[in-house]
């Protein structure tokens, strides 16, 4: 069941139909003695509608990879396409526009604006882009994350789990091509984590959302369709859906 070699998708193959696609991505921090190769040539594709989990030991490059895939950081070399657009050559403004259209985020620290209500927070990506909110979709999302009676509350009046649900709804409000989540359950207790994962799963199943999630938690990764393992800046394992126990085995084998 192990496929020890990282999948090396054929460079010539058409990359459409993919939500995100990376080719030979490297990332080097610093130079000389202090240099760190955070990514050493990563190529990976995420088809539309896939829920992928990225795992690996601390410092293996998970966050770096995710940030580059999301256009928040630029690779030292290699190419990244989001929904058919090459993003490594885009200017800040074009990247911002692309993020508005195609990318959603859920962060470990929920990152809600404390002075806005839950509803205003979740609408933020649309209002900042000056785009019309689809009221049906908003209603569906609010219902899905179970915040109907909390719309007018401020983040400080919400529990951590509720805040993260607002953040998830915010990430989905623009119907992005891909939702990136860096340890979205890292700050939640296990019951709230499970709730969160159910919601992520539901958005994939019901709305066909593509999700790339970085996590340390095997149980979180177990709700994904695919589990990738990074070590020292390389993808060392690439699996389909795995159960939590199997995931822990791989984690152990990598340590």
């Amino acid at each position, binding site marked *: 069941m192990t496929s020890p070699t990282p999948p090396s998708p054929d460079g010539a193959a058409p990359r459409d139909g993919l939500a995100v696609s990376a080719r030979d991505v490297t990332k080097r921090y610093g130079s000389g003695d202090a240099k760190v190769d955070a990514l050493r040539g990563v190529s990976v594709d995420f088809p539309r509608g896939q829920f992928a989990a990225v795992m690996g030991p601390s410092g293996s490059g998970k966050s770096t990879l995710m*940030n580059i895939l*999301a256009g*928040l*950081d630029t690779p030292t070399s290699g190419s990244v396409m989001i929904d058919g657009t090459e993003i490594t050559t885009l200017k*800040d*403004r074009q990247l*911002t*526009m692309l*993020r*508005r259209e195609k990318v*959603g*985020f859920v*962060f470990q*620290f929920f*990152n809600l*604006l*404390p*002075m*806005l209500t839950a509803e*205003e927070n979740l609408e*933020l*990506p649309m*209002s*900042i*882009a*000056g785009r019309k909110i689809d009221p049906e979709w908003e209603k569906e999302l609010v219902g899905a994350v179970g915040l109907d009676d909390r719309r007018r509350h401020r983040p400080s009046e919400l529990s951590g789990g509720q805040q993260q649900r607002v953040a998830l709804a*915010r990430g989905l409000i*623009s119907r992005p091509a891909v939702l990136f989540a*860096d340890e979205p359950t890292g700050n939640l207790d296990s019951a709230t984590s499970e709730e969160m994962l159910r919601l992520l799963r539901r958005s994939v199943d019901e709305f066909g959302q593509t999700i790339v999630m970085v996590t340390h938690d095997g149980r979180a990764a177990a709700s994904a369709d695919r589990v990738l393992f990074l070590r020292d800046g390389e993808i060392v394992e690439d699996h389909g859906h795995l159960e939590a126990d199997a995931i822990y085995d791989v984690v152990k084998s990598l340590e």
Partner: protein
Amino acid sequence: MLRLIARGILARKLRTALTSVAIVLGVAMVAGTFILTDQINNAFDDIFETGNSKIDAVVSRQTEFDSFEDPSPPMPESVVDDVAGVDGVALSEGQVSTQGQLVVGDDVISSQGGAPAIVVSNVSPEINPSVALEGRLPENPGEVAVIKDVADREDLQVGQDDVALATAVGTRPVELVGTFRYGDVESIGGATVVLVTLGDAQRWFDREGQVTNVFATADAGISENDLANRIRAVLPAGLEVETAAENAQAQSDDIAGEISGFLTPALLAFAGVALFVGAFIIFNTFSITVAQRVREFGMIRTLGATRGQVMTSVVGEALVIGVIASVVGLLAGVGIAWGILRLFDAIGFGLPAAGIEVRPRTIVAALLVGVVVTVAAVVGPALRATRVPPIAAVQEGATLPPGRFSRFTPYLAGLVLVVGLALLVYGLAAGLGATEALQVLGLGAVLVFLGVGGLARFIVRPLARFIGAPIEALAGTTGHLARANATRNTARTAATAAALMIGVGLVAFVAIFAAGLKDSFTGAIDRTLQGDLILQTDTFSPFPAAASGVVDSTEGVAASQFLRFPEVRTEPGGSQFLNTIDPTTAAQVFDFDWQDDASDALFAQLGTDGALIETNLADSAGLATGDRFTVTTNRGESASFTVLGEYRDPVLFTGITVTGAAADGLDIPGDPSVGVVLFDEGADGDAVKQEITDRMDADFPTVQVQSNAEFKEEFEGQIDQLLALLYALLAISLIISLFGIVNALVLSIYERTREIGMLRAIGTTRRQMRAIVRYESIITAVIGGVLGIGIGILFAWVLARGLEDQGIGFTLPVGTLVVFLVLAIVAGVLAAVLPARRAAKLKPLDALHFE
């Protein structure tokens, strides 16, 4: 602990720099004030000392007090011989010193910056402080020499043939035979100084058989004191003798008294405002950083630091900033001194200034003030830092515990506000002396600012909603976020805005007060003066009495009044103006606001024994119709008058009004300060005005002929110049408060790094990021502007009410206030430039990593 402080300052370089600016500018104002006034004092010392360096004693007329209209009263020329006859006098010589202006071609050469135009007679070389530079000094009738500075400024050439002197008997052509320096200086504070022969000075300036000073030198072996004593023995009553040193000292002291009595405190008051604003900003900055460093304080507490050590670390940082800023401020003070001097020059108050000298007193004052203000402003935040418990080190999102007395702060602020208002009212109503009243008012104003500053956070929210509404309507989400940011920490926004409020408040106050002043003055002219023309010189100094002949012999003039306003002392009543009128035409030319049953009929009854008094004098001196009172002039002449009636005119005819004949009886110089001309009914006004103007230009070119409207305009222009000076001095405080906004924004942005990263990640463009910061800055600035304008209106209203007796009204210059609001918006935009750029530069990624 020291290392911690040093680290803290280094780690927060930008903030430290921005905070320092708040103190640097205030300290620079303090240092600049001292440096400048020392320069001016030194310059005058030099002038008077060199002026007297070759003589041993000076005889002059004894005066009761100094008079603007009569600066050097004359004595009989025979005194020169009396002095010459004294045993031990080597040389005795008289001099006439008076005022008169040089005319070149058609132009009257005015002194720079309101300095007098001095005409002085030449004396023998043995005692002459003036030294010819080009050509020579005047020896023969019709010859003049001018001081080097004026010759250079006006590009005068020795031998030039179109030079004349405006004298009491008309314009006299003169021959320019030389330029000179006075002692060691080539300029006496921008004054036009013209040397003429003694005979010309006497003939031309109404001093026949008179001199204004007698200079004496001693025979060898006789001391100055000895000489003065010997001369004193022969002097007639009413004259005094001083040694040359005493005389120089007395003149310097006069100037020094004026500088230390007015200029220094006035400039220090502006420095005080700047420091006050600076203190607000330091307080705010440290409040913010202390709040941001809660975890750090908790951490050092867990490592065993005591509360005292926490306190030390915060106060220590302030101390270091205070010292550095004060030193920089001291150096900047030199620049400020230079700047203020230029400023005075630009609006027409030229002042002589010697080289820069930084006295120990200046250094001590600057450093002390800077350090004390900085440290005092930080005590509050430092005390709060000590209340951070060690547990804060491990709490996510630990916040600063509220101060022990925070529950009471609104009440305290309210109390301070009420006390401040009470002081304002007390200062105006209690009839205090000018100095005490100003001190009480100043303290009241400070307390009002503090009180409003303390209460401001309770109205930041509604104000921001109101101010933000148009921004939100226009800009949508960015506007909404900006408004939300501005109101998320109301105390911070309030303190930031309060710093601006102080400067704006004072600017608005002076603007409103000036508007009231203008209105009351122009209103008084409209009410009281029924004439068609007003005559005066550009410096409001007296002009030759003979000029009245020009007016009276012009066709189309129905009546004219040539008014003198000498200062006199009355018993009871103190210092007053003695307005002199011509009773024959007064009823035609003036419209007095008579009280009780007084009327125009009184003019005819004045004679040389009657007086009309203004109601303020009647009230303050307890005088009523029928009472007698005594008037004493600067020359020591006295006369008694009977009060015939009362009128109200606190602007133009304050004090006492008597006939010109009565003034002549008091030996008051005959030169008028103002003329009022009434045209014949049906006369061609423009033609009459033109003719008077032409004839004045020919014979008395210093006299300005203006319609009432032109005169009012000129007055308003002068007020505007004064306003410009005040604005410029207050600008420093406004600049400081801008730095306060910059600082608060930078700190807020630092604190919101992660939020900004999130905003950028979810699609906020850099431009939008900048807009969010800019709008927040505008909202803060406009809050400060609105509060400031409100306070300015309050101050001006209170003061106008208090000065109602003086005829000062309250006028709201709405247009000006709107301009101030617009400027507040501009200030907000400017203050946001740097912070907005920093916010926009944050990459979404940096922001996400940020802890």
